[in-house]
């Protein structure tokens, strides 16, 4: 995985502050591969919240906090929540191939 320990803990604490302690986080995509360089930080966050308005606010607050900690970075976030009507395949793949933080 190509994230420093500081970056990992920044992600974990920003998720905890915005989605709560129970949320699960996976890093997936190119940052999982030690042989690549640079690239977006792709994250999947799994929450038990089901109010979409609250989820959108949490996602925004999360991105804002994380960017203030890590500086301007390309961070892509997927959020899995129980009331989603449709789960695109990328969610399953992210969990299968990703690393849980």
């Amino acid at each position, binding site marked *: 995985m190509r994230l420093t320990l500081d970056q990992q803990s920044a992600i974990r604490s920003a998720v905890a502050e915005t989605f709560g302690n129970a949320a699960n986080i996976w890093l997936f995509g190119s940052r999982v591969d030690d042989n690549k360089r640079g690239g977006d930080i792709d994250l999947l966050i799994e929450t038990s919240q089901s109010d*979409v*308005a609250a*989820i*959108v*606010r949490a996602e*925004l*607050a999360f*991105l*804002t906090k994380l*960017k*203030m900690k890590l*500086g*301007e970075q390309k961070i892509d976030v997927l959020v899995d929540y129980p*009331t*989603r*009507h*449709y789960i*695109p395949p990328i969610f399953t793949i992210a969990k299968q191939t990703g690393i849980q933080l």
Partner: protein
Amino acid sequence: MTDDIPTLRLQDAWRECERHVYHLFHALSSIRTFWPLTGETYANLSDEQVQDVDQFILRFTKLQDTIGGRLFPAILHYLTEPFEDRPMIDKLNRLEKLGFIDSVERWQMVRNIRNQFAHDYPDDPDKNAAQLNLAFESARDLYAMLTTASTKLKAEYPALELGKLLSVE
């Protein structure tokens, strides 16, 4: 009429902001008839309503870009603060310290709302709707940021002529 370049730059950036504010709130006045959106209403918007939403997104984006990319740098230049080649975050922190921005975090939040427009979730209309609702609310924050900057400018530089910002209820 002044020939002072920093003043002209600032006035020019301000005028551009005014133009975007006008069109942003014009779009919002149409949108008021059908918001807050739900996943269902979002999926069933009329062509006219989609145009209103698109206009809103365009002006929100432009206003955000103009404030961050032109107005804020122009204010620092006007104040003769040597921040031209510094990263954006340094400029923002400086402006917050000087009282031209209330909260850098709030600014970054609105910035991220603007960036989220790039994402469309075709599989998740509920989320699209929630994101737009949040953006509609945030138009007021963007407007408040302009008010903060202009109030401060007028207080410190009474001779500076800035256009009058459209008032919104």
